[in-house]
């Protein structure tokens, strides 16, 4: 009998091929949507990690409390030895110092008078150390628009938009006006090496990237760092492990009574990211659920139509003396076989597309030029364990349910009625 079922499926194209294609497409779309949305969430987390929070961040307790103000008077002292200690204790992470600062960038003309001036939000990172992860984290090579990356002390990058606004060209010199760690005025001259665009709007407004050694000099912060960012070596954020490391670190180094003692926070614990990530996860879950429902209805209907089309066959089989229950079950088996086969193929197809998206990405930079989203403009999918099974939900369940519901007609109608419907 099973052989008979399989023969039927294999030989009847309209019975198998059309529903199979619908299932494959539906399942593949489900998988792609899921990986794509996870990729988006991932992307957001990664942008946030690379530009702002790290996977973990060490600051003083006081700095952490006012992190938004960039309070460099509360920076960590003895940063280098702290980094060495953290690296020794948690070798799975890379640690790198940063100083975030605000100020005015002043552009003098040939006679030394101010030609243009604008507020900058600066980030000082370790640019020249070959072991530094920063050029990669900030994606500097890809972000460069004009000029070149800094190669010598005193060279900086500024955002392309900002440079256009002030009329700055690579090669120009500019003066940073800011405040030292100890509260006095600071001047420092820089050469503009190049301009950058990150594709992250928040970073592109008035950004300035400088080498941390220069800024330490400029702001009188020798061996100090506003923040020490930690990144897992595989650059994948792992909340559980990050939490363990932070707890471990804080137990050893942090003293609640000393506001200058260091404190480690995970990505989630910073900038209200926890609630943002949670809200987004919920939203993504919602989108996926709605999509699943839609796929469910589509596949349900495909199952329904498949059965309705077969009243003739059903009538003949009943007349031959097949029991209704037997007939009903055989239709269900058929839909299970189709559902599983379609889900397997659809999942494979969806994963293949997702794999491509995960490794190549699609640059939609030109589409979101004016958006203020906090993620990078290259869309990437991310395959998670869920991706392997999510398609089976609509693929198998909806197909079988659609058949099950339409098959109830077999029970409800008088057998002779099935014949009547056949004749028309």
């Amino acid at each position, binding site marked *: 009998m099973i052989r*008979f079922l399989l023969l039927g499926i294999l030989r009847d194209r309209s019975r198998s091929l059309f529903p199979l294609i619908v299932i494959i497409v539906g399942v593949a779309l489900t998988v792609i949507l899921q990986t794509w949305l996870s990729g988006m969430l991932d992307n957001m987390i990664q942008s946030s990690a690379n530009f702002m929070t790290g996977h973990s961040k060490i600051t003083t307790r006081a700095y952490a409390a006012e992190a938004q103000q960039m309070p460099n008077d509360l920076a960590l002292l003895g940063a280098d030895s702290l980094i060495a200690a953290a690296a020794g204790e948690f070798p799975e992470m890379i640690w790198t110092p940063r100083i975030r600062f605000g100020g005015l960038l002043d552009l003098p003309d040939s006679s030394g008078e101010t030609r243009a001036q604008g507020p900058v939000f600066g980030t000082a990172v370790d640019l020249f150390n070959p072991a530094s992860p920063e050029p990669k984290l900030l994606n500097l090579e890809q972000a460069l628009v004009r000029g070149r990356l800094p190669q010598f002390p005193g060279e900086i990058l500024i955002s392309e938009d900002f440079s256009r606004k002030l009329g700055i060209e690579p090669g120009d010199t500019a003066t940073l006006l800011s405040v030292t760690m100890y509260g006095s005025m600071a001047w420092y001259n820089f050469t503009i090496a190049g301009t950058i665009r990150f594709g992250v709007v928040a970073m592109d407004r008035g950004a300035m990237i400088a080498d941390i050694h220069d800024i330490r000099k400029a702001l009188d912060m020798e061996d100090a760092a506003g923040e020490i960012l930690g990144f897992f070596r595989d650059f994948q954020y792992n909340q559980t492990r990050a939490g363990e490391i932070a707890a471990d670190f804080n137990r050893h180094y942090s003293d609640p009574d000393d506001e200058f003692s260091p404190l480690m926070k995970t990505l989630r614990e910073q900038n209200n990211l926890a609630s943002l990530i949670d809200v987004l996860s919920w939203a993504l879950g919602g989108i996926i659920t709605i999509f699943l429902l839609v796929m469910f209805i589509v596949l349900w209907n495909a199952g329904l139509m498949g059965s309705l089309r077969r009243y003739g*066959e059903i009538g003949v089989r*009943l007349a*031959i003396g097949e*029991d209704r229950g*037997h007939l009903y079950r055989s239709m269900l088996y058929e839909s299970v076989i189709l559902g599983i086969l379609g889900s397997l193929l659809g999942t494979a197809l969806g994963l293949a597309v997702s794999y491509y998206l995960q490794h190549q990405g699609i640059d939609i930079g030109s589409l979101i030029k004016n958006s203020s989203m906090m993620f990078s403009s290259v869309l990437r999918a991310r395959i998670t364990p869920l991706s392997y099974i999510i398609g089976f939900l609509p693929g198998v369940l909806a197909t079988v349910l659609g058949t099950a519901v339409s098959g109830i007609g077999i029970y409800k109608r*008088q057998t002779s009625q099935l014949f009547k419907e056949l004749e028309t």
Partner: protein
Amino acid sequence: MQNSILISTNNLTKRFPMGEDAVVALDQVNLQFRKGEFAGLVGPSGSGKTTLLNIIGSLDVPSEGEVLVLGEAIEKIGHKAAARLRNRHIGFIFQTFNLLPVYTAFENVEFPLLLQRIPESQRKKAVWESLEWVGLTDKAKSRPSQLSGGQSQRVAIARAMVKRPSIMLADEPTANLDAQNSHNILQIMERLNRELQTTFIFSTHDEKVIQYLRRKITLDDGRVASDETFTTERAGS
């Protein structure tokens, strides 16, 4: 046994709901059929022929009255028992849409035996025998779409007879066939009737079929208008 009654209806009435009213398709029908009969229901369109065949074949149930088929009371029969009755003892042949299009002629004939879980070797033998009866062994591997109308009806006969039913119900089996094919399948059925004592009940408008009948029941508006039996052999043989 020769003349035992296989089917009897007692005041059989069938109504179909039609909006507020009901159509009376069969009205107080009292009929008996004996083993080995070759009988036909004739009458104008809408007179209730198909309805009567469906009820005898347990595809439908009476609204009133009793119907006894091989000892089973159709008015009380459950789905499972009805399916078993059809599967073991009743063969159907319809005007159209007889065969399952995805299966070959052989597989179509095999299907009822699969339902009975008959072992393969026995099954194969019975299928070949049936195909031989209708002269279609060479078309065993053909699909219904590759068969002519007459060949399809012969496969339908082979499938109906493969389980050696005691009753064959044929609803206008020749309606779509030309004269040659009609005579051909009627002769096959007549032979079945003669050699295997299978009881046949037809519904038909077709004069060619009527020639072969040994009993002609005329229905009119759901009632039995006449019931004639011909003792002498008539056409064909």
